[in-house]
């Protein structure tokens, strides 16, 4: 029994090690965070950004692997942290703020990631060259953004995820 536990521990640790290597190689090679830092002129604080990448990943890992322990709202409400009877209303507000924060910032990240990957594969320059596209690149980018927005809204409102 004990040996099997050790085996499981080794298996898990190795899996985690390799997964972090794989996931972060992709993340680094699209060069998203250097670009954020360059755009915002905060390259000197790149350490802080890396710390946030590490912490964000660990938080995401906790909430998806140990999802039963990550039920924050249920815990707050069952312990009545903000006073008896009022906790539901208060947490409703706080929870919404947390959801908005998560939604907006992860949305920005995924939006940048999607275009960064498209750019890494040189899709846009190659296509632009093939069709002799010289002016209006800004308009094309705007169209891409609007297309993503429309697609995302259709996906969620029409419940596309239910039928795959």
């Amino acid at each position: 029994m004990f040996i099997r536990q050790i085996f499981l521990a080794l298996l898990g640790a190795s899996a985690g090690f390799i997964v972090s290597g794989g996931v972060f190689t992709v993340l680094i090679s699209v060069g998203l965070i250097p670009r954020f830092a360059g755009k915002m002129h905060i390259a000197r604080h790149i350490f802080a950004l890396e710390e946030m990448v590490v912490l964000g990943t660990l938080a995401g890992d906790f909430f998806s692997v140990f999802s039963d322990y990550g039920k924050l709202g249920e815990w707050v409400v069952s312990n009545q942290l903000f006073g008896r009877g009022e906790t539901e209303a208060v947490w409703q507000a706080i929870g919404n703020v947390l959801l908005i924060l998560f939604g907006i910032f992860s949305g920005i990240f995924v939006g940048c990631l999607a275009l960064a990957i498209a750019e890494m594969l040189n899709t846009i320059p190659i296509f632009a060259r093939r069709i002799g596209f010289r002016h209006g690149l800004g308009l094309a980018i705007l169209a891409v953004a609007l297309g993503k927005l429309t697609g995302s809204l259709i996906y969620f409102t029409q419940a596309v995820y239910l039928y795959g």
Partner: protein
Amino acid sequence: MSTNNVTLYLKAEQNVELQSEDVYVKDIGKMTCSDEHILAKVKTLKLHHFKEGEPKRQVISILKVIAEIEKTFPNVTVENLGEIDVLVEQINVNRHKGPVQMVKIVFVSLISFFGTAFTIMAFHNDIGINEVFTKVYEMVMGQSSDGYSILELSYSIGLAVGIITFFNHIGGRRITKDPTPIEVEMRVYESDVNKALIETADREGKMLDVH
């Protein structure tokens, strides 16, 4: 001034940032010359002036620099050992200070935090990590797990160790002296941007060059 020919060695940089409105030869890189007197004079030659309301960015071709130097000092031969185009940017000293920068750092930090949290959750969801772990546990232990097992715990520890090894620092302290991957990417990105700006200036004819 001596009448003998002297050689001035110049090592131009790809990108320089200035606070003053005037660009002198000394700003575009390092240089050395056997004649100290000429060296000091060459360094104070003016190359460009940033006017009010004009873009604070100028690409200067090394040919222009050489032409300027040789116009004033005909007996000086210039040898450039560095970059052939220099991107000069005028920056405001107090532009990057104060609460605005703090807000930017917090903004990018939040994107990095929630973005990566979302990415790893989406990845786990994609591969159905909990089903995989349940299967592996059953295969190894011969019985289904009650709740969470050592597998999930060690996976999370492995993930943390992997990231920290990858990024090479923990809590603001470097583990080894190597630059971190994002620092390397940052330099690559900066150099790419400089090259693109120089190329664009060349193509649009906005480079300060000889004709």
